[in-house]
């Protein structure tokens, strides 16, 4: 039992911008790193960090789920998971045996915009670790039996996930919010699409979307950067040059008016809800003032929304809000849950708090507090090799660099009340909202009409989101 579920908050999702091992209070700086572009176009980033004898790899490649063919949702995600399940030189068993024997970690998955591969090894086993990463990335063989096995597991995995509302409300929300836009589609696929994925689909996806030109690899840890640069050039330089796939996803338009989706989960004792609209892209110039407002609205324990729904009223264990910063505009969302009988009260309260934010804004003290909070909580986000590898690769993958970190505190300091008031009006909608409820329909369906003129329904047992 923990006191709160820590939210991997808001703006700074996986790749929090942050400062590492050299931060001094008041200023902060990303440690020096070396950037190398291989002749085939692959970007390599190297940073020495010798506190712990580990070496961390983080790779981003332009093989996001937005490239999943229609009806084959989940193929980017499956391709990532299959990288280690058989290569030109190793069976899936060999790969796992060799990885586990050295106590290494290797994970790969797909988000909307990218496939992410992360791995970590002890310094003494670096040569072996590098060999495994390269083998998986460059020579996967996608054995038919492994593809079938994984597809069957994934279909059941989605069913299992639906046994827990909190685990799938995001998929329902994105599908309902984005409609026909590529971001509507679940990165992990659904029961039907995943069942249809074949070895050919996977091989084709890999061929089209895994390219040196679309790949950024960050390596951070206990090693010599000059030596590592040579090794990586030797290993990954052999990857035949190929241009990255075009990844032009247009911004989705904001949803106008209000719409509500009710997903029936008949055993629910609690209603889970997510409310929001289209939010911001990673490149949004207002991200720092938005992060400040979100911190105060729903990004920390004393936020307005958690204060009302949890601290003052005891309606829920937690309420929070956030912005997913994707390549194109990601979702803005407010989350909470409450007992079936208090669903209406909690929904009313959520909308009231949103209204209060828009009408009354925040105080000078609030602004000061949020700034101190963001600055104080930032250094631990870039404390370790794996965090730094994640941050570095994310920055460069998105066309940014260390200035993003090195100016972060100054950008926080520069935010004025006028900025705050402007972003509240622009990015925290009230009249235009998508509302998704997952709960016991027989007890809460009467409420739906109160919140939106358009009401849609689904059963959690039905395939898809």
């Amino acid at each position, binding site marked *: 039992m923990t006191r709160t579920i820590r939210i991997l908050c808001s703006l700074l999702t996986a790749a929090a911008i942050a400062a590492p091992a050299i931060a001094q209070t008041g200023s902060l700086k990303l440690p020096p790193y070396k950037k190398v572009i291989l002749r085939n176009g692959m970007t390599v980033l190297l940073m020495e960090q010798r506190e712990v004898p580990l070496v961390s790899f983080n790779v981003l490649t332009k093989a996001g789920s937005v490239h999943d063919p229609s009806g084959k949702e989940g193929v980017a995600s499956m391709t990532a998971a299959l990288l280690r399940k058989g290569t030109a030189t190793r069976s899936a068993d060999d790969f796992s045996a060799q990885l586990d024997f050295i106590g290494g970690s290797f994970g790969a998955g797909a988000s909307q915009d990218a496939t992410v591969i992360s791995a970590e090894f002890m310094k003494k086993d670096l040569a072996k670790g590098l060999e495994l990463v390269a083998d998986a990335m460059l020579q996967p063989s996608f054995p038919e039996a492994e593809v079938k096995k994984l597809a069957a597991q994934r279909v059941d995995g989605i069913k299992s996930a639906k046994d827990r509302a909190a685990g799938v409300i995001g998929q329902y929300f994105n599908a309902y919010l984005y409609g026909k836009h590529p971001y509507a589609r679940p990165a992990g696929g659904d029961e039907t699409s995943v069942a249809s994925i074949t070895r050919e689909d996977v091989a084709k996806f890999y061929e089209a979307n895994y390219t040196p030109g679309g790949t950024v690899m960050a390596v951070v840890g206990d090693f010599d950067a000059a030596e590592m640069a040579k090794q990586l050039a030797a290993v990954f330089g052999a990857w035949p040059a190929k241009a990255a796939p075009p990844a032009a996803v247009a911004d989705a338009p904001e949803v106008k008016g209000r719409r509500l989706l009710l997903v029936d989960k008949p055993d629910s004792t609690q209603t889970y809800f997510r409310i929001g609209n289209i939010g911001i892209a990673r490149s949004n110039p207002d991200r720092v003032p938005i992060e400040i407002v979100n911190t105060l609205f729903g990004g920390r324990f004393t936020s307005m929304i958690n204060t009302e729904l949890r601290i003052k009223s005891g309606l829920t*264990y937690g309420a929070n809000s956030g912005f997913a910063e994707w390549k194109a505009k990601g979702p803005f969302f407010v989350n909470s849950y409450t007992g079936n009988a208090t669903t209406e009260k909690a929904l009313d309260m959520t909308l009231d708090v949103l209204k209060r934010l828009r009408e009354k804004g925040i105080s000078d003290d609030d602004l000061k507090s949020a700034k101190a909070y963001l600055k104080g909580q930032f250094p631990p986000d870039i404390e370790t090799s794996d965090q730094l590898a994640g941050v570095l690769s994310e920055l460069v993958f998105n066309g940014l660099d260390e200035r993003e970190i090195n100016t972060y505190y100054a950008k926080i300091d520069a935010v004025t009340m006028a900025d705050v008031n402007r972003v509240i009006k622009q990015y925290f909608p009230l009249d235009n909202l998508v509302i998704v409820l997952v709960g016991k329909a027989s007890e809460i369906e009467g409420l739906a009409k109160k919140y939106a003129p358009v009401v849609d329904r689904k059963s959690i047992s039905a395939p898809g989101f």
Partner: protein
Amino acid sequence: MTRPATWLTALAAAVLLAAAVQPAAAQGFDIRTHTLKNGMTILVQEDHSIPNVALYLFYRVGSRNERPGITGISHFFEHMMFNGAKKYGPGEFDRNMEAAGGSNNAYTSENVTVYQNWFPRSALDLIFDLEADRIQNLSFDPEIVESERGVIASERRSSVDGNNFGVLAEQLSAAAFTAHPYQWPVVGWMSDIQAWTLDDLKNHFKMGYSPSNATMVVTGDVTFDEIVAMAQKYIEPIPSNPPPPKVMTKEPEQLGERRVVVRKFAQLPILMMAYHVPETAHADYYALQALETILFSGQSSRLYKRLVDKDQLALSVSGGGDWSFDPSLFTISAQPKAGVDPASVEKAIYEELDRVKADAVTDEELEKAKNILLSGFYRNIKTISGRSNAIGTYEVFFGDYKKLFTAADDFAKVTKADVQRVAKQYFTANNRTVATLVPDAAPAADKK
């Protein structure tokens, strides 16, 4: 970042915790200790790599110190510690901490309640002031107690009602223990959550929250001398109470398999089984850790290979022990695939356990386990937060933080015969409880 994202269930969280904190490497980092006159021990590890501090307080009180009627009160109390004291009233603890750039959390297990503070070093003085205020002068406002009751009820609905693994784990523990307090859930039974009184809370505070019953661990951008000085200023004047009464009840030896069935709306079944094993400080700890790693860690582990990969009976399988003061459980959890009879998963698990008992593990597996535990150790100490948790956990559960530094050697001594012996000794039919979640098409309440 080692804190669990969510508490799942008492059992699962404990398994997570056990998996997260691995034995130490041979080399250490410099830890200095000081004991205050009121009995609180302070452990300090200086690390100036980031201008931040992780300050943890481990109280040796948890759900094992409860009784029927007030189950879950330790966890409830964990929440109340944030709800106002004398100098800092309701909401002020969090408001002041966040305004100074800090954040916090806390967790409760069967054995301990742990308070975690993460903050820039500029907030050090404030954090001591906040901690001292609530240790000494916690207030019990009846309205706030009622409101917090609602929060806990929601937490329980999330982690138990809304999580089939949570429901089943709770029933598993309740059946595996017949006498010892580990039988009830850390979050408490819903009827107890609804029934605690103010007096129950006050008594619990007096019983568990004496400075002498706590260990403070500070890791980060601090000096030993400044921490000792602050502790002397803020914490030392707080008087201590007698420690909580000893938990006298010992779980009697289990004399035959127990079986539990939960029928519930679900798409997929779940299988869990639990074997009684000794407490953390027992000599068999290292052999059991080795066995756990060989059976469950990674895609080359015996049970993953058998259940998920080769036979394709299960979606997932995991298992492990728990940090505990008293003999506890080693739990195995698997989710059968749709259409697979949980009995066939159960049978395959027994066959794998029997294989270890009959033929022992291999040299290679033992060496692999050692490497996994070593790299896990490094991952665990790479943050100041992870280090505070590891230092405190070893200090509390082994009685000495130095066990963190000898763990690699202690582990190196484990032989194949040791692993085989613990498998034979503890993983017996008579010593197990088996729980199955059987999917129902309709929720129970709608079927009369």
